[in-house]
């Protein structure tokens, strides 16, 4: 459990870091190391070089305005989680972050690192997709924005190029007519979930549901978002509409079996959690509307 040999650099400017990446197609960015270091130690990854970005200045921000939350590449999960403004502007981010690993790992792991690691079992990628967020990618060639919808292409595979550093993630603010919820089932506290669901429910001023969307982790190859609005066409939420929503969700998911759970059980959890989380998001939506009123 010792990594294969690699060279290591710790650049102090973003340009320097980008140049190092551009110079070596086999190099990898090292952020919090909470995913990469275990892969190195198990020799599942053997990059020729690590470009440690932890000394690059001005990347650890959590910035909030009425549009949303901007999270810098070196903002640790714990810092994002603890930010009261971020929680206010987009509560789903902190709801999901609470379920990412354990405190010690959240103290080092970065939210942006988690987003670009592109694990379909991770909480934050699906939250980014559900909220319609984006990341900013920098390279020696310049800077571009990648929409969340275009980011994930396969298991642990994103459209971020190897010579790019994701400098920032953007989570749009929660609209005034919306409510959110997040829940997951894991074997142990803080483990990657067997199934997790995030939901955003929107309703008009009269309380009639206008949109229900849910994001799923660990039940397909990619972070998957399903539009469940159809099940709530009548504008109300009841057992029947929740059942219909769960049916709709399952049609879009492809849960697989592993040593912890059968595919059937995962599908069952997706059904149970869809109903639970959509109901909670609807309650949240109602509470916010009534709170405003």
């Amino acid at each position: 459990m010792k990594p294969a040999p690699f060279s290591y650099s710790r650049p102090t400017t973003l340009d320097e870091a980008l140049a190092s990446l551009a110079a070596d197609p086999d190099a990898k960015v090292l952020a919090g190391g909470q995913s990469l270091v275990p892969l190195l130690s198990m020799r599942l990854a053997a990059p020729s070089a690590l470009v440690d970005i932890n000394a690059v200045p001005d990347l650890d921000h959590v910035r909030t305005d009425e549009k949303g939350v901007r999270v810098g590449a070196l903002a640790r999960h714990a810092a994002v989680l603890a930010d009261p403004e971020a929680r206010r502007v987009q509560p789903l981010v902190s709801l999901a972050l609470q379920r990412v690993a354990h405190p010690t790992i959240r103290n080092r792991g970065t939210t942006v690192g988690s987003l670009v690691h592109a694990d379909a079992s991770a909480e934050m990628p699906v939250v980014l997709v559900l909220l319609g967020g984006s990341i900013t990618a920098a390279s020696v060639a310049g800077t571009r924005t990648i929409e969340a919808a275009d980011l994930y292409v396969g298991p642990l595979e994103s459209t971020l190029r190897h010579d790019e550093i994701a400098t920032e993630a953007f989570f749009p603010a929660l609209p005034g007519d919306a409510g959110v919820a997040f829940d997951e089932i894991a074997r142990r506290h803080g483990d990657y979930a067997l199934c997790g669901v995030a939901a955003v429910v929107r309703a008009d001023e009269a309380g009639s549901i206008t949109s229900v969307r849910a994001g799923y982790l660990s039940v397909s190859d990619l972070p998957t978002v399903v539009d469940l609005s159809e099940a709530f066409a009548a504008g109300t939420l009841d057992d029947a509409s929740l059942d219909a929503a769960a049916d709709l969700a399952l049609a879009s998911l492809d849960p697989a079996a592993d040593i912890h759970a059968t595919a059937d059980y995962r599908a069952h959890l997706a059904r149970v959690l869809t109903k639970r989380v959509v109901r909670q998001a609807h309650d949240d939506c109602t509470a916010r509307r009534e709170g405003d009123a």
Partner: protein
Amino acid sequence: MTTKLFGQAVQRVEDDRLLRGQGQYTDDLMPGALHAAVLRSPHAHARILAIDVDAVLDVEGVVAVYTHEDLVGAMAEPLPLLIPHPTLTHGRTQYALARDEINYVGEAIAMVVAVDRYVAEDAVDRIRVDYDVLPPVVGIENARDGDLLVHDDVPGNRAARMEQQVGDAEAAIAAAPHRLSLDLQVERSACMPMEGRATLARWDTDSRRMQVWTSTQTSTGVRAAVASKLGLDLGQVDVITPDVGGGFGVKIVHPWPEELLVPMAARALGRPVKFIEDRREHFISSAHERGQLQHVDVGFDDDGRLLGLSVQFWHDNGAYTPYGLIVPIITSTQLLGPYKPDNYKVVFDSLYTNTVIVTPYRGAGRPQGVYAMERTMDAIAAYLGKDRTEVRAANFIQPDEFPYDHGLLFQDGRPLIYDSGDYPASLEKLKALVDWDDFERIRDEARAEGRKVGIGIACYVEGTGVGPYEGGHVHVETSGKVKVSTGLTSQGQGHQTAFAQIVADELGVPFEDVEVVTGDTRRSPYSVGTFASRAAVMSGSAIALAARKTREKVLRIAADALETTPEDLEIVNGVVQVKGAPGSRIELGTIAVLSNPLRYAFDEASKAATQFVVGDPSKPPVAEDDEPGLEGKDFYSPPRSTFANGMHAVVVETDPETAEITILRYAVVHDCGNLINPLIVEGQVHGGVAQGVGGALYERMAYNEHGQLENASFMDFLMPYVSEVPKRIEIDHLETPSPLNPLGLKGAGEAGVIPSAAVFASAIEDAEGFPITSMPISPSELFALRLHHEQKLQEGPHA
């Protein structure tokens, strides 16, 4: 009088140092040593056609590489079969490095020694091995079928078949008014100590001595193995056990291949070499336990009293049998627990599979036995519609029946005779502790709210403190400080504390003045090891006896000096004084000075013992039947094991939707005889319960059909976190002293883990209303069982 420390919750002296990170584990010693890394088989079953190590020596920093071809003499022979048994007709052990066949993923094939572990691993990656891959035998059913063989010369994959019988179980079952049969399964888990295996060796070329530091549960065992395999005299080999980060059984196996290969390399290279096992290696090359299939036939009367019990089980011993049949023998005997079936028959097959070896893991076969028995008790209660505690009580051995002879042979080859216990009292305590009689109401209330809760119970008896012996050595220095040594090792149990409590009491010295050393063959060359909940019973007793001898000598010398008789003296706080006349006194340190007639005065204190000061010039300075120095040494060898016992109850809630299993309450009643230190005993129980929760609800060894272990990391092997174990474990003690040893001790090390699978199965069954026959159980499996039983209900009785 000094307050008695025996029985007090004295804070552990070990903790301050260990919690501050000041422990000294094998890997902390000799930072400059060379490092070894081992090439392990990637296949479960294969013949080795060729090994090419040429590319290895090109790696900068590599010092040596070894394969079986490089082993000479006894090192080239298979590893020892440590515990032979007449029924182990087909015992097999592996080579330190595989010769021509490998039988599990992880078996050692080659070892590289390099300047550090990184380089050693790089080099290991470059070894090329040609394999002829053979079909593996995985799982007990496949082993039992015997279509494929692990070892060509072991038909049916059967290492042993053993049978024991008292009375005529089959006839009794046939004649019984009621009969039941059960088929049960328990899966594998493993010890998973925080520190893996670790060995460091240094060969002193000048003095021709081998020094080995190893993370073991038996320093003397490793010493004997190293000496015999490397052709050294025992006197040339020292084995020292530094701090050990947990053992739980896996480190009683010896010698592990690396415990021989590292000293061998250290001698060959003339440089210190260490091997520090990593976690993946621990999963695939250190021992596992627990896997069994069981079939129970039982006959009973209207009260649920056992009339005949016949058990057959199939025990997965993995690829080799270095530790003999200890685990299945314990299952087959300890299965009986606190009960007395008049007629009992047990047959087991110990079977080879192409998986990691199986050797004792805390509980050592008992969890499986208790599971079989307690599942049976619950099945009888369900069948008769009786309370589960009533059926158990109907079968208890009664307090006036001790010593109770089961008529069987135990794991130590001695009769299975229980020394003491009070099972009805234990049960009453447990029922009170967990409000057993009120649970009906709680279950009904929960049901009315749409919740599912259940209570489980499981009872066990644990043979502890097995022989053959341990020793104690107590030495009073001229400072009055007391140095104690015992040969068995410590893995975090708190021996330094508990043994110091015993010595402080026996000798009348302050606790702080007692220092205890364990597991160092330079101090204690004769010893067995730490396993089978035996440390307190064996070394505790031996140390007490040694302290008593020391005390006798103290009083004899003091009586001379104070011109009185030993009977008139007492020792208080390190001072010997005349009872009732505390003015007439002499310090223990002074007695130590007097005990050693000296030629030279090297400090103020020693002047008192020089030749012109003390002694009767007409007699030899050391009397004929005496020895210089203030020391006491003794051994304790018990006639047979002591038998601790306990009962656990757990209340669980199972989520009606997600099938998640939550622990609401966990209660333990525990009788390990007299308690030396309740804090330590409760710590042992807590740790055991935590491991038990792991074994019952989380952990398994996920071997696929190719014999690959799919969860060989802490990411996928679900050892419970602190968030998964009960926040509070309610404990009540009963102290039924053992008549077999001087302190009335039993043993507590394994207790907490023994009834776990049984008690959780019992509680989940109670919550769900259908039988639980396979453990551990995950939410996914519980969900599948629910579907299965719903389907059966829908199909109706005629389907």
